[in-house]
């Protein structure tokens, strides 16, 4: 049984759809990447699953956590899940941390909430967590305020707080986007180490295929509120089947080989209140035929654990075998 499975998860704000039926399951110990451009719904998916969206969001579908339905679950259940079984970290650590409380207090708060730890026990556990996430001089850092730490260190603190509840699943939403490249590398290595040592399940949300390729085994590509392709990471880079995924790969400047013109996808993402009738990508797609506008294509299996939502996939040459470096 998967750890989490989403079925037909849909979200609408004021009648405008943000998510339009997400089916995704995450197995225990797995690292799954969720890739897409701004507004594609990759963050909303997990905010909806954890009941973190404002009341005006209309949520339908199902999110099962080992047999427990989370959509519409009472607050008492959700509060145990949030931070306890599923923890989430966000892009900007500085705005996730409370600027007027010391680091140590913010970690022990999570320990008291999820593990009923208080006093000296909580403080020494907080120190252990800071050591674990690689903050030097942890004892002294417990008394520091967030502004005294760098962006990378604050993100480590956020990860320590997330780990305080001993979650089975960590959802990292663009955890390195606000950080410099060398610091991004440090945080990605840290997430890998934590997975190795704790067997934690990871969902990594990112706009950067490179970041996901580096840390995940499987990836789901999202476009306009739906998953358009799902594949093991190596397969996605060697045999991307959806025109949008191919477009994303073509838009990435290569690291070697001759400098070619980038294959930019024309146009922009559709607005939620003006969704195309059929495939949402059709207006930007070079392979569009009349049938694409007739209905929203579902995910069809292409190979082992490779699914794609495109009517034209049978007609398309599966591109390049080589992995772009």
């Amino acid at each position, binding site marked *: 049984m998967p750890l989490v499975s989403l079925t037909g998860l849909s979200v609408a704000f004021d009648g405008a759809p943000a998510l339009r039926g997400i089916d995704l399951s995450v197995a225990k110990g797995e690292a799954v990447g969720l890739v897409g451009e701004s507004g594609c719904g990759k963050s909303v998916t997990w905010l909806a699953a954890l009941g973190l969206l404002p009341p005006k969001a209309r949520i339908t579908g199902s999110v099962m956590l080992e047999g427990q339905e989370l959509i519409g679950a009472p607050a008492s259940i959700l509060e145990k899940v949030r931070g306890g079984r599923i923890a989430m970290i966000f892009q900007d650590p500085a705005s996730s941390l409370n600027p007027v409380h010391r680091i140590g207090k913010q970690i022990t708060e999570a320990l008291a909430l999820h593990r009923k730890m208080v006093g000296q026990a909580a403080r020494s556990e907080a120190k252990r967590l800071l050591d674990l996430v690689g903050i030097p001089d942890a004892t002294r850092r417990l008394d520091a305020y967030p502004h005294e730490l760098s962006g990378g260190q604050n993100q480590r603190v956020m990860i320590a707080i997330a780990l305080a509840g001993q979650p089975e699943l960590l959802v990292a939403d663009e955890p390195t986007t606000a950080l410099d490249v060398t610091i991004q590398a*440090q945080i990605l290595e840290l997430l890998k180490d934590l997975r190795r040592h704790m067997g934690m399940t990871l969902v990594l949300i990112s706009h950067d295929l*490179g970041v996901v390729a580096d840390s995940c085994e499987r990836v789901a590509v999202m476009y306009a509120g739906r998953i358009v392709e799902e594949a093991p990471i190596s397969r996605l880079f060697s045999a991307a089947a959806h025109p949008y995924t191919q477009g994303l790969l073509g838009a990435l400047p290569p690291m070697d080989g001759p400098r070619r013109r980038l294959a930019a*996808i024309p146009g922009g993402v559709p607005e939620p209140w003006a969704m195309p009738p059929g495939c949402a990508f059709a207006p930007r797609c070079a392979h569009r035929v009349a049938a694409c506008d007739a209905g929203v294509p579902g995910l069809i299996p292409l190979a082992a654990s490779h699914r794609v939502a495109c009517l034209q996939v049978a007609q398309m040459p599966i591109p390049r075998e080589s992995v772009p470096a």
Partner: protein
Amino acid sequence: MKPGGALLEAEGLVRRYAMRRGIMGRAVEVRAVDGVSLKLERGRTLGLVGESGCGKSTTGRLVLGMETPDAGRVSFEGATMPQPGSAAWRKLRARMQMVFQDPLGALDRRLPIATQVAEPLDIHNIGAVSERAARVEALLRAVGLRPDQGALYPHELSGGQRQRAVLARALATDPALLVCDEPISALDVSIQAQVMNLLLDLQEQFGTSMLFVSHDLRAVRQVSHRVAVMYLGRIVEEGEPDAVLHDPAHPYTRALVSAIPHPGRMGQRMVLQGDPPNPADRPSGCAFHPRCPVANSLCAREAPVLKPRADGRLIACHVAHGEVAAGHGFTGQEAA
């Protein structure tokens, strides 16, 4: 215009700021740019790469005269840059334009796009008033916008279209130099590709020289003819983009290159210890030595000079130049 010949030369640029820590704190001197020299040829692009706080944006502002250097000089088209703020400088500014990261912040939300694109023509009094509408149309077409989109306000355009509008405005005065400060970082991946393609097209069409400031080595390779890597206010390596990317010589460049996430990575990534240093508390000797895996005792004492290797690559590193054997670094020691 054929490429070749220096359009812009900067020598020994220094920019210091005074920073106060706390209300009662003493003012500390921060050297944002600490002796940067660069040369940009006509019709070419120089990529300036580095992490936040390395001084790459300040360098971009210095070469335009938007900030006055505390030392060093800038020459443009062979002549020394006039005093910033002077009439001669203002006249020269039509020949060099800036493109910023956030197009929404760079545009006036209360004016339609076409009015904003026409503004530089009015300011610099370029062309007859009757011809300006046609010029604006041509500019919008050149950046891939439709002339009728000129009637729209910034909020009615997408992020990529806004950056096109900013480029159209920057190109209005037919500048010889564009300084692009992170022009694609705020855009989605597929839109980044559109803007990079556009920059290359515009360069081909108008022969514009570009200073492309970015933290993204991939993007820099895509658009630049040369790349300079900055660390804490200094250029630490400079050369052809492919050469620098495939065979980085400075340990910092090596770390930057190895930090680029990409599939099919061979071997272990080189992860730097510690954070980028505080410019207000600049390490002695080579500023990179506290994070450098091969630093030796000389590196902590003496700052290396940027000078050419046998193959012409400019590097500022004692170890890369063979002046000292590779050490084991100071990471994990008190030096950090």
